[in-house]
């Protein structure tokens, strides 16, 4: 339950944060949410990764569909990954997911879940 809640919160707050802050707000959100909802390291990483991977990949895919793939095709060629908007949307998701996942993992080590269970 906590796992899904943290995915949902990270995704939601990353989206809102992204409107007002630079891109790295995703790392801050991932870190804080796991501090507040402590989890095992693997679960923390996964919740951060999945939340922002989905957020970024879905946002990118939606924009790309509306754009008819015009720009993502050109940027794909520019970055040397070929004229494939889908690949570019996935790479976008992986980069965002990786940063958030690592931030979440750091938080998990800072405040291990097991200890919390014992003290509360």
């Amino acid at each position, binding site marked *: 339950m906590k796992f899904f809640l943290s995915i949902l919160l990270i995704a939601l707050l990353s*989206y809102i944060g*992204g*409107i007002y802050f*630079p*891109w*790295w707000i995703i*790392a801050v959100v991932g*870190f804080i949410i796991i501090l507040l909802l402590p989890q095992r*390291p693997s679960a923390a990483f996964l919740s951060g990764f999945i939340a922002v991977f989905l957020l*970024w990949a879905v*946002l*990118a895919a939606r*924009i*790309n569909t*509306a*754009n*008819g793939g*015009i*720009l*993502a*095709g*050109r*940027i*794909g*060629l*520019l*970055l040397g990954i070929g004229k494939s908007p889908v690949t570019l949307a996935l*790479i*976008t998701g992986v*980069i*965002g997911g*990786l*940063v958030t996942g*690592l*931030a979440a*993992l*750091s938080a998990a*080590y*800072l*405040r*291990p879940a097991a*200890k919390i269970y014992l003290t509360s």
Partner: protein
Amino acid sequence: MRIIPFLITATITVGLTVLLSRPLGDKIPMPVGNFLSPQSGFWQNAEDTSATFNGDLSFPELKGKVQVYFDARLVPHVFAENDEDLYFVQGYLHAKFRLFQMDLQTKAAEGRVSEIAGPKAINYDREQRRLGMKYAAENSLEVMEKDSKARAIYTAYTAGVNAYIHSLKVKDLPLEYKILNFAPEEWTNLRTALLLKMMAKMLASGTEKDLALTRLHTVFTTDQLNALYPQVPDSLKPIVPPGTAFEKPALNLKVPAGADTAYFKEPHKITAFEEYTPDADNGSNNWVVAGSKTASKAPILCNDPHLELSLPSIWYEMQLSTPQSKVYGATLPGSPYVIIGFNDSIAWGVTNAQRDVKDYYSIRFRDNTRSSYWFNNGWKPAQQRIEAIKVKGQSTVYDTVSYTVFGPVMYDASFRDTLTNNNGLAVKWMAHHTGDDGSAFYFLNRAKNYDDYLNAIKSFECPGQNFAFASKSGTIALWQQGKFPARWENQGQYVMPGTDSSYDWQGYIPQTENPHAVNPERGYLFSANQRPADAAYPYFIPGAYITPRARAIDWYLSQSNNITTQTMMDLQNNYYNITARDMVPMLIRYTDPEKLTPEAQKYFEIVKGWDLFAGPASLGQTIYQCWMDSLSTGIWQDEIDKTGYKAELPAEETLMELLKKDSTVMGFVDNINAPEQQTIHDVVTDALNKTAVVMAQAEKEGRLQWAKFKGVTIYHLLKDALLPFARTGLNVGGWGNIINAVKKSHGPSWRMIVQLSSPTEAYGVYPGGQSGNPGSRFYDNAVDTWASGQYYPLWLMNAGERGDARVKWTLNFSKG
């Protein structure tokens, strides 16, 4: 708490975030994290293909309301209540659709590319600054801001650009800023002046060959040089119809005492060279036909300026209207006004005058501080301007430029002149001291008849242009307009002595004596960068003239009657190679078929059967052009190499003209490096054999067809750095000496045809799109229309037509 794993993962997280927040080198100049973020990065520039452009905006700078009606091609039809609001909105729209290009072009003009591109641009920046580009812009600005009406317009335009810049959030930045990781800079009136100086450099700087001719002069005599680079070609069809009488010149020019030896016999030894020269094919076509030659009995005006083709295009299409005036045409992002266009009464178009308005003077400095120089029998202090060139990723580079009575010392011991210690070359250039050249367009936009047109253009100074004109009342005219030095014969062909004022320009050709023609009996006028008048013109007017296109236009127009707009479209897209018409019979005559290789024989047959049209699928054109290039090299290169300088070879049409008169081409046919004597037969045959090797390779690769061989490409402004943003492999024929002057990535940057009937019938197209955003469907939507020789109807909208089906979106501006 698990401190070790925490420290490790936290370090990795922070490290990765920092890594993704900064440029990763030349290949990946963008901060990847920001660039990929769908909320702030490049995805934000991917415009919805069903996006609308409606909106309501308010700005305190406005005095009243302004409506902008966009048509289906995103061409804005602007309706303002007064001039200032009109140009505010023009500035706003230019910035909204073309900000990066305006920013880049004016930074380049000022010599500030190193700020964006790093150390590799330092030489470019130094050259721009030493040419005095900013100095020239500052001088113009002073005049532009002296007149209160002009100042109000330029200031309103600037405010419009800045209103858009200030409205931008990081996520809205044009894509190129996100890729190159910098931010747009505020607009100023100076930047508008800089943009106009960029045009001056493009069109009135590369029109001299002084440094090259000075080098060549060490090997060739003045007579030889005048034959190789002739001022009045035999095949010239000038702007002013031949036979026109010219008035006796108002000026009496004195050749300096001793010029016979000091200037003509003892060439200066120089090592200086210009590295970033404008394209020699920058030029254009325009022509007007009178009602006597058209089916509708109304005049038709046509214009296609040939420039570097780029995405976004140099042009942005607009209509600008107030209750007093209404004009439509091509505008230049970075400047107010319509530059080429029409209104309800007249139409006008421009081509480049190609006149030489730039000279070099040899300066002798007192010592290596270069703070004083010998002039009129004494040491005269030189003003020094310290140029600070900021360089991305490196410390600022300083360059001191000395200014003399002639102008800035472009070349000296610190810049490309290693031979001459304590000497320098000062550059005197018309663009350094001009008035408000833009104002000519303000008045042209509002001209109602010939007198208005003449009044509008007569203060225009640089870059000299051929202004074609047609009016609804039936007048056609063509003026070559600019401010041009009055020179004695051969003045300024070579570097001149600068130790006194004797070699300085002695005056300017009076404006009324500029070459022009109005309502000629033959019923048509044309200009295509040819010399404006024949040898009867009473001044020495050197320039980088291009002869063949004007010849072809004259040939077609002279035999056309009942001309329609369709006839004119066909002519703008015409591929006839008029130089080849004269040249091919000579090539055939001088070829020894028995000395040709089997491959060469095959290509020889293709040229013999060629229809002389340089269409996209033509094989004959490919072979002919390569054969001519090889022949030119065979004839000229051995002699020119003696100067140790990479000079431009004499033009193709010059070779054609000389060969018609003399099969030894003044003796140049013989190869001076070979022991035995060569004849024209040997050189022509040898050139085809060499060409055949290249052709066989091209044929093997499937690119013998002319369009494939040329590889027509329209690059993004940043060229190879953004190659995926280019349009490649366009199926277009033509060449620089053909009416449809498409080269590899250079050619007709705007085609316009206006029939001054009631109602006006106008057509136009440019190879690009209204939006500069590579993520927009309007980025390159007109490229295929242009490539296939088609046009869009141009709509000069009336204020009452806001309900017309052609209006797709409305953007309202108001005070607030």
